């Protein structure tokens, strides 16, 4: 097992290298002159060609792109993420400042989605094609189809404006967390419900369930110990991927609820052509994504004794 984890960690390094390389190239290939965009942010509208050239030289943008990338890489390997070219703020500080907000929202919405989705999925699989099942299918279809920006505003309108129960924006207290987590959680729950349902249906058809019934085990034991545990494996994979995606920041929900997360930081820095900041964000997001995937794989082995990674050595 430890061997496996060590190997995976090494692989993550390769993945992260690849991701930063791709994101650097994408930024480079994006239309527009980065020196001009940066100069515009610093000096405002009345720009001269000399100022643009001065910025290009000062920020090392005149070097070939691979040199720029290698320079960046060298600094990162010395744990120096650099400073934002626009605000001069320390990039590591900027990211660490937003990480707690992002993590809080990601974990809360994941929890919320699982709490809704697993019982709903199990119930609808047990009463297949019943009214309850159809209601679940319909609701989850609705959940997938409603865009987050609309749901978010609707929730603010209902809970903050009409009921005056929750704050409409901000970050800090638990109350602030409820609406953004609900927005993200319900739309994720929709997909997870359907996944749980189909996975349960498949497992319930297996012969060992019939055997368990024949053995005379009570229905609850069959359901929870034998069926649900196995049915949850694909759900777990999906949830792990969702977590990785959520940790990357969710720019729309962050914008609507004025939530100071990583997603908005990343998108703003892309628009500003703040190369170092974009790279820093991408690096962190890639690490978080890879680690959450690794965590899922390890959990897999814990839950399913048939999976023992060491055997493949």
């Amino acid at each position, binding site marked *: 097992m430890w061997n496996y984890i060590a190997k995976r960690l090494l692989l993550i390094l390769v993945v992260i290298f690849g991701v930063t390389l791709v994101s650097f190239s994408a930024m480079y290939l994006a239309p527009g002159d980065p020196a001009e965009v940066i100069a515009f942010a610093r*000096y405002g509208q009345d720009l001269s060609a000399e*100022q643009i050239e001065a910025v290009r030289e000062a920020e090392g943008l005149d070097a070939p792109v691979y040199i720029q990338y290698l320079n960046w890489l060298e600094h990162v390997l010395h744990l120096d993420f650099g400073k934002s070219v626009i605000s001069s703020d320390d990039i590591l500080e900027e990211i660490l400042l937003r990480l707690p907000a992002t993590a809080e929202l990601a974990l809360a919405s994941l929890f919320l989605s699982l709490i809704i989705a697993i019982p709903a999925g199990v119930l609808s699989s047990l009463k297949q094609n019943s009214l309850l099942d159809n209601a679940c299918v319909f609701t989850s279809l609705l959940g997938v189809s409603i865009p987050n920006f609309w749901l978010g505003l609707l929730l603010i*309108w209902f809970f903050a404006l009409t009921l005056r129960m929750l704050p409409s924006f901000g970050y800090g207290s638990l109350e602030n967390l409820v609406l953004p987590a609900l927005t993200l959680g319900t739309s994720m729950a929709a997909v997870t419900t359907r996944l749980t349902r189909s996975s349960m249906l498949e497992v319930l058809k297996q012969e060992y369930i019939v055997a368990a019934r024949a053995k005379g085990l009570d229905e609850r034991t069959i359901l929870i110990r034998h069926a649900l545990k196995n049915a949850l494996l694909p759900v777990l994979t999906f949830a792990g991927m969702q977590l990785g995606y959520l940790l990357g920041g969710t720019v729309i929900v962050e914008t609507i609820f004025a939530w100071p997360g990583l997603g908005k930081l990343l998108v703003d820095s892309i628009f500003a052509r703040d190369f170092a900041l974009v790279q820093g964000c991408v690096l962190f997001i890639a690490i978080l994504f890879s680690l959450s995937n690794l965590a899922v794989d390890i959990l897999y082995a814990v839950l399913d004794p048939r999976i023992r990674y060491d055997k493949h050595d």
Partner: protein
Amino acid sequence: MNQKLKLITLILMLLAVISASACIGGEEDGTAKGADSEVSSQELTVGISTDVNNWYLDKFPDGDGRFVWSQIYETLVRLDPDLNIIPGLAESWETPDDGKTWIFHLREGVSFHDGTPFDADAVVFSYSTQSYVTQAVLRPIESVEALDNHTVKFVLAKPMPLPFYLTHVAWPVMSPSSVDAEGNFISPAGTGPFKFESRVKDQEIIVSRNEEYWGEKPELEKVTFKVIPEASTRVMALETGEVDMIIKVPEYDVSRLESEDGIEVYRKLTTFTDFLQFNSEKAPFSDKAVRQSVAYAVDTEMITSEVLEGVGEAAKGRAFSPVMMYSNPDLETYSRDPEKARTLLSEAGWKDSDGEGIVEKDGDPLCVTLLVSKGVWASRHNPMAQAIQGELAEVGIDVEIKFLEGGAITQLENSGDFDIILRSGYFVWGSYPKHFFVHHSMSPYSHYRNASYDELVNAADMTADEEKQKELYYSLQDFVIEEVPAFYLVHEEKIVAVNSYVKGYTITSEDPWLNLEGVYLENE
């Protein structure tokens, strides 16, 4: 056994989460009411869309940060709510040589928030080469010199009406003590009615009353700026009372808020005008007749009343708002006349010979691209662009809208690979019509080359004599109507909404500027 233990732990965790969220539910009522009853003290909460990206004069303050700057920092010369020029930190000024040298007599007995006295050295410091603005708009400044403790002399490379240039909040006077011996920024120190208190990045900025303020002291003790990027959330936060005031109310919410009890909406024409800028350096818009036909085809009154829900004033081609200095009230503007547009096009050789609705010349159909930026104006420019597309189709011009981010637009601008750009602002601050520079051949944003236009702009900007200035700016307005380097669409309105317990607010035309003088909260 082990399995059961795991299951029990899992269930316990779930229960914990559920009960935790139930607890939150219980507390919610109290806090929401708390936000409503904060009225008792003179503390104002304002919803803005972006955080302050920068506090120091080495960089341009972006976005709504300038509304916060306008509380903390002040300029030598100020504008009143109707954009008339009035003394600020300078009590008076004069030019001995028609605009090449300017002498400012500074107000005495003023000090910065950190106690440093405001004097001539502070002005020299603020407009030194350290300041970004001396590398941008104020590039013509050759030297700034303290004649005595309270007199400063600016020497310029060419004559220009410097006092107008010095009214903008983005290049105010800062204390030399804002930086340490190595030149590193410490904290904001201005002379304004409020002083910087604290900031939580991307969330809030708090300023408190400057008890030593030289002018009329504010009624408000504290102002909290809450950063709420989404306009709809900002509006709802005002309605719930979480914030007391919001700026930049979206057009579609204005009439609803106006009819709502407990909310006051303030509106005033600002200095900004949206415009369609033509690429006059290549066909088809190198032909004046084609540019004019667009001016006749686009109904700016309809755009204002329908697309922008009556917010703003139809410009009909007028380059700047009636609130601007030297705006000619009797200017002959365009009125919608599709017939005239078609005639102009056909006289220029563009005819619809195959009857498919698009005019052609030498076999090429009149297809043009319209660039719209994804920047701060997007929410208003996007629907405007679609309306324009529809109106131009009526006279046989096929418009393709390209919705792009700023960098991509600059690239197309540099390569000349576009026909029209929809824009707002550009060289707009205060009431002074510097904006005409946008179509000058020296401007990086110009797509129009005309030597007589350049001459007019140069002459107007180098004149300190008001009568002559007025004459020149009147001819520039006529020039833009006749030659149409750009077709001006809508004079924008500034909109500020407050809860009605906020009293004493006077809206100003100046933008970006938030005037909190005389504002107080009425206790109930």
